[in-house]
């Protein structure tokens, strides 16, 4: 089962874990990314493309299922305005084999940073607003997957 969502609503991690039916698989790896309140950040806004963002996530999900033996995959990205502590992204990957679940999870989270149509804007307590620049490290991590 592949479940891919782009949503402005909060991500309900517990409900998604249940839906993923984690209990039925040998190994489940997960990754949760949250908004960090570093440097007085008060809001993170994620801009997205109405069709390309979802299509990009679906491509990544299918790419992971092609590469590894995956029993279930959940990939949910929140967009719009978020506060520190909010979950931005949730990846759940299950497989009969632990190495496959872990690799798929890491692959997806690395690829998300470079391959999906999303743009971050940060607002700080002092009123500063800035769009995030692409980091070289993200591109390098994604390239490891060839």
């Amino acid at each position, binding site marked *: 089962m592949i479940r891919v969502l782009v949503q402005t609503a909060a991500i309900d991690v517990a409900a998604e874990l249940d839906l993923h039916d984690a209990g039925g698989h040998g190994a489940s790896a997960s990754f949760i*990314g949250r908004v960090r309140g570093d440097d007085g950040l008060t809001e993170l806004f*994620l*801009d*997205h*493309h109405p*069709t*390309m*963002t979802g*299509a990009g996530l679906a491509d990544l999900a299918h790419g992971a299922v092609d590469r590894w033996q995956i029993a279930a995959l959940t990939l949910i*990205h929140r967009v719009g305005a978020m506060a520190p502590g909010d979950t*931005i*992204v949730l990846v759940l990957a299950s497989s009969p084999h632990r190495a496959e679940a872990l690799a798929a999870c890491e692959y997806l*989270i690395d*690829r*998300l*940073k*470079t*391959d*999906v*149509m*999303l*743009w*971050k*804007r940060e607002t700080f307590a002092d009123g500063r607003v800035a*769009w*995030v*620049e*692409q*980091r070289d490290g*993200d591109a390098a991590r994604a390239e490891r997957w060839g």
Partner: protein
Amino acid sequence: MALNIAYFAWVRERMGVAEEVVDVPAGMADVAALVAWLAARDDRGALAFADPLRVRAAIDGVMASPGSPLAGAREIALFPPVTGG
């Protein structure tokens, strides 16, 4: 020639609109020409496209390059490098 253009992130903010239909000179060849034309059109275009190397494009939902032809395009998206996830 009428083109539907959508802007994202700081390109959208600098252009002041999310989407617009623009009438470009007939025979405009490619994405690079469109970006140069938008930069020359007015102040908001000059601000958004001051550095064409920082702009990416997609045509009808498919990533494009500066040399991608505009002929037959239904929607052109212009945006900065992605920073998501």
